[in-house]
């Protein structure tokens, strides 16, 4: 096919046929932006953002997070006898102790006085 023939063929194409590759790229970018927006909205609204310690500002505590939970738990299948109950009692007591031994989110750390933004004493 000669160059002249190619030019003739190109001139006979409609604007859509001539620009469809650019339109394809453009649409791909628009769809990608939309999907990223949806993903970010889900990330923010689901509460996942609050658990994400890789965010800026959490560098100092990142290493202190418990990375994997090795606790296997109690089996949902099997018979029920005295031994089963004793096993559960022990597992439950150990885990309950860990979960309740600390007064989380308590204290007076956010009081006006602690933050020195209280009304000055006369």
């Amino acid at each position, binding site marked *: 096919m000669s160059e002249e023939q190619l030019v003739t063929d190109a001139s006979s194409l409609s604007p859509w046929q001539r620009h469809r590759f650019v339109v394809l790229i453009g649409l791909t970018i628009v769809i990608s932006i939309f999907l990223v927006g949806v993903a970010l909205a889900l990330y923010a609204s689901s*509460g996942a*953002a*609050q*658990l994400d*310690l890789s965010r800026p*500002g*959490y560098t*100092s*505590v990142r290493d*202190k*997070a*418990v990375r994997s*939970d090795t*606790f*296997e*738990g*109690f*089996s*949902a*299948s*099997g*018979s*029920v006898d*005295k031994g*089963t*109950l004793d096993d*559960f*009692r022990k*597992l*439950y*007591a150990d*885990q*309950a102790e*860990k*979960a*309740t031994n*600390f*007064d*989380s*989110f*308590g204290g007076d*750390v*956010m*009081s*006006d006085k*602690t*933050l*020195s*933004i*209280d*009304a*000055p004493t006369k």
Partner: protein
Amino acid sequence: MKRFLIFSIAMVVVATGTALGHSLLVRADSPMTETQIQRIRENCVEAQSTLYQLHASDALLRVNRGQLYETMSTKLMEPFDSRLTLNSYDASGLVTVAADYDAKLTEFRVDYQQYEEAMSRTLAINCTNQPVAFYDSVADTRSKRTKVHDATLVLHQLIGDYKDAFEKFAKDFKETDK
């Protein structure tokens, strides 16, 4: 018709009066003097630094504590209740506590999310330029943090309740086993 008109006007006057009175009372509860505003302006950068640290340590607490609270439900309460049910035992007492626990755990997650969002808003405020907005935002964040704390206390209570329900079941089991 005239009576209805008078009644309507009276209602509007009462409603407006109530609204105005309430806003005045709220303002009267927390009067902020120029001296306090100045004090906030002077100390708020340091306060924000403290809040940054608290924000990070609370996030860690949420991850680690949250994991423990989840474990109590998914790896202990639920499997144990299932096992009792599969073996045709009456686990209704335990199931009720476990359901309450799950509901409270959901509340804890939502409360923490709201607290964290409030804290992020507080940290984003330019407190030197907006000391009053900063003060109000700290108060809002504080109340949300208190809600999270209250939710953890209820979770601890429910963990104890489940233990009591378990001991009751174990006692009944022992008696029927004799």
